[in-house]
């Protein structure tokens, strides 16, 4: 059993017609199903023509539920006594896909057998195949029984004829009929023995004469009045007495009698005697009654036509079937006038050329309602030349003299219901094709107008049909695709995934938004998003061209890149600002030193000039070093690779690093012993370590451990081959690792890109790692990053080992001396030593007493001490605690402490208004000594005024 067949069955169990059949047949099928006509559908594609649908009417007919019948081959219908010839005929019709009508003996569930008039109709689909056969069933037993009724009727008619004949004979031969004589004058009534027997009278008494009441006493009560009136009629002058009525015998038996009589009249018309004969017609009446019941119950009307007569003897049922007033005789013309003009007349002339057909069907237009009905006529043509008509009952022919000819005895019955069903079926079959066409047209409209790619793919992957949209979207003509593998039109990179997806779709795993690239005839490709559904063995695929969507996504990505680029440019701006800040500091040292020297020379104070000259020089050298670093970033620096003892370098940096990292971060240094010398540029290396340490610090905003370790490392070929320009061998390793937030892999991948930064704008230049990378690479080394989000980052520099030579140590420039002062006490916090020196000197010259600190925490110690402080001068950009934070803390201690900020970073000026509170001011580096003096004087004087103003209170 295939999955499809099961699906069909399931559809039925949900209580309806299998959707596939409904799709083919349309709404007319429902009217057929509901018409009460037993109907079944068989699956023509499966062997044995199994049943896949049966309507309730069929279930009733066969006495069996659909569930018991489903999937039975059609042959289950046939009863044991079914005609094998008819079965063979059905099979032949099935195999030839043609309709058929056949009468088959069919067995019900209870074993009873009936005549089933089968009508088979192939249900054709749009492809011309016949997936189903529609069967209608009609219990013909009744109709075929009519044939039996007809035979019975013929027999009954014969019996009736015989009975009438007997009655006639009885009347003619007095011996079998009773006779009576009613003497009107004497009021006596005489009857013979037969009459007495029928009437239940004493024969002797009847012979001797009885009172006339005796004539009525034995008559059945229901008939008595009628007979009294009839007798009264005779007494009043009626010539003929002819009545059929019932008499009740002495034993209570009821018999029908026929009385025929008349009056003997006197010359003046008066009645002298009333006499007649009485015959027993019980049997005749019984047969007549049977005939009437048979006709009424079976809906069968009888007629008899004798050739040449203008009238037809008919039964009342015959008249009712034709919609005429019930009567016993009708003119031929009247009967034929009822027949539909397109059909042959019911009563045909019976001359030799037209003996009358034994069975035919015809339509009538009922004169009473105008309704069209189908009637069937069966009959028998007899050429017995016998005239068998009962003129006494008003059935006499108008033609009068015709005495001999052919007779046609027939029956008619209504077959409208059966015909209607047949007609409906015929119409259904006829219109099926048209409806399939219409639906095909509708489907074609969708198919042809669709802007999506539509394709029907067989289980073999071959395109059965494709929509014209393929030409519009992919350039291929429909004919170029149909019959070929869908895979032939798929981009080679997606052939595999498409094959996988198609396999799924064929196995009922419908695709949803499966994307692949389809080939365009022009050699390009289009991105298509596919959805599929499977019906039968076919996959229906709907593809939407998403090329533009994809392009839009690309554009978006590019835009994002551009934005990032713009952000980088902004970062360059930030960098420039930062560099300017650094340069300003350095220039401050240079210019300031020179300024002092000049003043001193002017004043003739030539001692101690060297100090200021040295400071200026140092600043200028640091500026040069910065330029070096910038060049390193651009990889155009002039490196001076020398053998370096890495351990010494790291040790010399330890203090600087601790200062840079602040209290929250613990610095651990692990150094390998007997480490070989590395060959590198000492300044650059120092700068690189510092940079890495700062990055590590920034990655641990809440504190953590920063580890610097040194060691020897061997990079094997397997590793170095994957890195351009790196050779295998021994290296000196310096690793800076933190316990910070780490980086996700995509960030790691970009970490060496110039300007790439994870820091918010303004917090970093993004140059650090790329500069390190550039420098290390330039010296033949290597850098690697190991990072895990939330676990930390380790950056390892591999420096090439050096053969020997004297090593350089990287000690920094030493700190300056502390100047003494007088008057107000000023605390100077400045990390740039040159600047600090200059400021202290200026203050000294101006007569202030200067305290100084190189960074925030040292300054706080002073602030928290009890020593007097009249003014705080602080750099804004301090390592660790910055100037602003320092000022805040200081103000908490000493609320009125005036603060003068010194800044070399122009960006801070922008927020000057937000930055400065009451009693604060700012001076920009580089500044002239006079400017600084004016600021200090101004701020102290303001404070003095406030104090004076506040004192009286």
């Amino acid at each position, binding site marked *: 059993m295939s999955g499809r067949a099961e699906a069909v069955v399931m559809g039925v169990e949900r209580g309806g017609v299998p959707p596939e059949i409904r799709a083919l047949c349309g709404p007319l099928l429902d009217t057929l199903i509901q018409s009460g006509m037993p109907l079944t559908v068989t699956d023509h594609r499966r062997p044995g023509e199994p049943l896949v649908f049966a309507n309730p009417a069929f279930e009733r007919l066969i006495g069996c539920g659909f569930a018991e019948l489903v999937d039975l081959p059609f042959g289950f219908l046939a009863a044991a006594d079914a005609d094998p010839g008819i079965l063979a005929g059905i099979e032949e019709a099935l195999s030839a896909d043609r309709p058929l009508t056949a009468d088959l003996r069919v067995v019900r569930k209870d074993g009873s057998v009936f005549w089933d008039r089968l009508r088979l109709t192939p249900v054709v689909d749009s492809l011309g195949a016949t997936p189903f056969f529609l069967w209608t069933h009609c219990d013909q037993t009744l109709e075929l029984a009519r044939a039996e009724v007809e035979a019975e009727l013929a027999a009954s008619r014969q019996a009736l004829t015989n009975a009438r004949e007997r009655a006639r004979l009885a009347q003619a031969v007095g011996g079998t009929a009773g006779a009576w004589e009613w003497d*009107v004058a004497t*009021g006596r009534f005489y009857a013979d023995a037969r009459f007495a027997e029928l009437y239940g009278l004493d024969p002797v008494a009847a012979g001797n004469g009885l009172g*006339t*009441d005796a*004539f*009525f006493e034995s008559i059945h009560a229901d008939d008595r*009045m*009628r007979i*009294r*009136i*009839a*007798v*009264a*009629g005779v*007494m*009043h*002058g*009626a*010539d*003929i007495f*002819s009545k059929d009525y019932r008499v009740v015998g002495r034993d209570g038996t009821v018999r029908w009698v026929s009385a025929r009589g008349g009056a003997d009249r006197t010359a003046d*018309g008066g*009645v002298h005697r009333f006499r007649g004969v009485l015959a027993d017609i019980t049997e005749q009446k019984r047969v007549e009654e049977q005939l009437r019941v048979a006709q009424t119950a079976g809906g069968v009307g009888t007629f008899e036509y004798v050739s040449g007569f203008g009238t037809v003897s008919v039964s009342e049922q015959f008249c009712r079937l034709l919609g*005429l*007033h*019930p*009567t016993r*005789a*009708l*003119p031929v*013309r*009247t009967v034929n*006038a009822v027949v539909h003009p397109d059909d042959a007349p019911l009563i045909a002339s019976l001359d030799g050329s037209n003996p009358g057909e034994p069975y035919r069907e015809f339509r009538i237009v009922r*004169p*009473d309602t105008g309704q069209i009905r189908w009637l069937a006529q069966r009959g028998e043509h007899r050429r017995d030349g016998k005239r068998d008509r009962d*003129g*006494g*009952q*008003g059935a*006499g022919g*108008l033609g*009068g003299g015709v005495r001999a000819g052919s007779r046609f005895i027939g029956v008619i019955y209504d077959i409208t219901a059966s015909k209607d069903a047949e007609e409906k079926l015929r119409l259904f079959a006829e219109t099926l094709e048209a409806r399939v066409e219409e639906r095909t047209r509708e489907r074609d409209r969708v198919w042809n107008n669709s802007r999506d790619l539509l394709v029907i793919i067989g289980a073999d992957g071959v395109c059965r049909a494709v929509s014209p949209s393929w030409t519009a979207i992919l350039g291929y003509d429909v004919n170029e695709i149909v019959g070929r593998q869908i895979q032939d039109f798929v981009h080679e990179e997606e052939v595999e995934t498409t094959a996988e997806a198609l396999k799924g779709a064929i196995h009922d795993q419908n695709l949803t938004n499966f994307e692949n690239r389809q080939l365009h005839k022009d050699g390009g490709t289009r991105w298509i998003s596919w959805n599929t559904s499977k019906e039968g063995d076919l996959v229906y695929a709907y593809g939407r061209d998403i090329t533009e969507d994809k392009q839009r996504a690309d554009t978006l990505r590019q835009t994002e890149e551009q934005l990032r680029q713009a952000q980088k440019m902004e970062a360059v701006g930030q960098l420039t600002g930062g560099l300017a800040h650094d340069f300003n500091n350095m220039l401050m040292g240079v210019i300031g030193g020179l300024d002092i020297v000049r003043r001193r020379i002017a004043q003739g104070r030539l001692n101690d000039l060297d100090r200021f000259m040295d400071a200026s020089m140092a600043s200028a050298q640091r500026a040069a070093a910065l330029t070096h670093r910038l060049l390193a970033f651009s990889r155009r620096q002039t490196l001076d690779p020398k053998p370096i003892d890495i351990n010494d370098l790291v040790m010399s940096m330890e203090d600087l690093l601790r200062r840079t990292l602040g209290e929250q971060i613990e610095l651990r240094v692990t150094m390998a012993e007997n480490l070989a010398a590395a060959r590198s540029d000492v300044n650059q290396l120092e700068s690189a370590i510092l940079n890495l340490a700062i990055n590590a610090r920034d990655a641990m905003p809440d504190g953590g451990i920063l580890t610097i370790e040194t060691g020897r490392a061997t990079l094997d070929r397997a590793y170095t081959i994957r890195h351009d320009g790196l050779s295998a061998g021994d290296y000196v390793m310096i690793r800076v690792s933190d316990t910070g937030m780490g980086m996700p892999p995509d960030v790691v991948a970009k970490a060496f890109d110039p300007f790439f930064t994870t820091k918010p704008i303004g917090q970093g230049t993004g140059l650090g790692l790329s500069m390190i990378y550039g420098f290390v690479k330039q010296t033949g080394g290597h850098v690697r990053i190991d990072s895990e989000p939330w676990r930390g980052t380790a950056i390892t520099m591999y420096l090439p080992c050096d053969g020997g030579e004297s090593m350089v140590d990287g000690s920094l420039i030493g700190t300056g001396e502390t100047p003494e002062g007088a008057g107000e006490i000023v605390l100077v916090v400045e990390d740039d030593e040159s600047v600090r020196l200059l400021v202290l000197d200026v203050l000294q010259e101006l007569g202030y007493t200067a305290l100084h600190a190189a960074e925030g925490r040292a300054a706080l110690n002073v602030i928290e001490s009890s020593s007097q402080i009249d003014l705080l001068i602080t750099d804004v950009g301090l390592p660790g605690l910055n100037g602003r934070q320092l000022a805040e803390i200081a103000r908490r201690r000493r609320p009125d402490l005036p603060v003068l900020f010194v800044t070399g970073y122009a960006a801070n000026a922008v927020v000057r208004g937000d930055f400065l509170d009451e009693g604060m001011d700012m001076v920009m580096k580089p500044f002239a000594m006079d400017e600084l003096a004016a600021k200090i004087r101004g701020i102290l004087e303001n404070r003095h005024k406030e104090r004076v103003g506040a004192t009286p209170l």
Partner: protein
Amino acid sequence: MTFAPYALEDLETDALTELVNIGVSRAAVSLRKMVGSQVTLSVPSVEVVGRRAAVTLIRERESDQLVAVRQDFSGAFSGRALLIFPEANSLELVRAVTHDELSGQEIVDIEEEALAETGNVVLNGCLATMANILQRPLAMSLPQVMKGDGQILFELSEEPDDNGVVLFLYINFAISGRDIRGYIAMLMDLPSLRSLKELIGEFIARVVGAGGGDG
């Protein structure tokens, strides 16, 4: 075919049938005198139908052109009486009443006169007898011969209303061994039918009350 408003009960129909039987028997006596041979007339059945149904009915049963002798009557019940034959039968009747002595052309010439006379005998005998038995006087108009279909015959000239009824009395003629079938139709309005029904009721009461031994 009967209709509730003017239906006669079975017994009344039987009685009416007998009344007409008596009437045509009398007419037969008159005809017998006219034609000098055995004439038997009988009325086997009676039907009361609406006028419109009567047209249908006669059309169903008689497809040929019809010939009718018409006489209007008035009295306790009023209306129009028709003796109707199929046209083909009328010549047969004329031939019968003229003893087959006339040539074809002569028969055609006297057909109308002969029919009028025969009709008069039958209808007059019938209606007069009924009136007599029902004990009511009835005035009759002169006979008139008409030809046409049922529609024309059953039109009551003056009144366009369709409330009228038709009493169909089938009548079999047996003249000189010929079977001739015809109808007597009595066209009446509903009041007349009601009167007739009452009179029949009285008649039934009389005959049954008299034990059928009415002399």
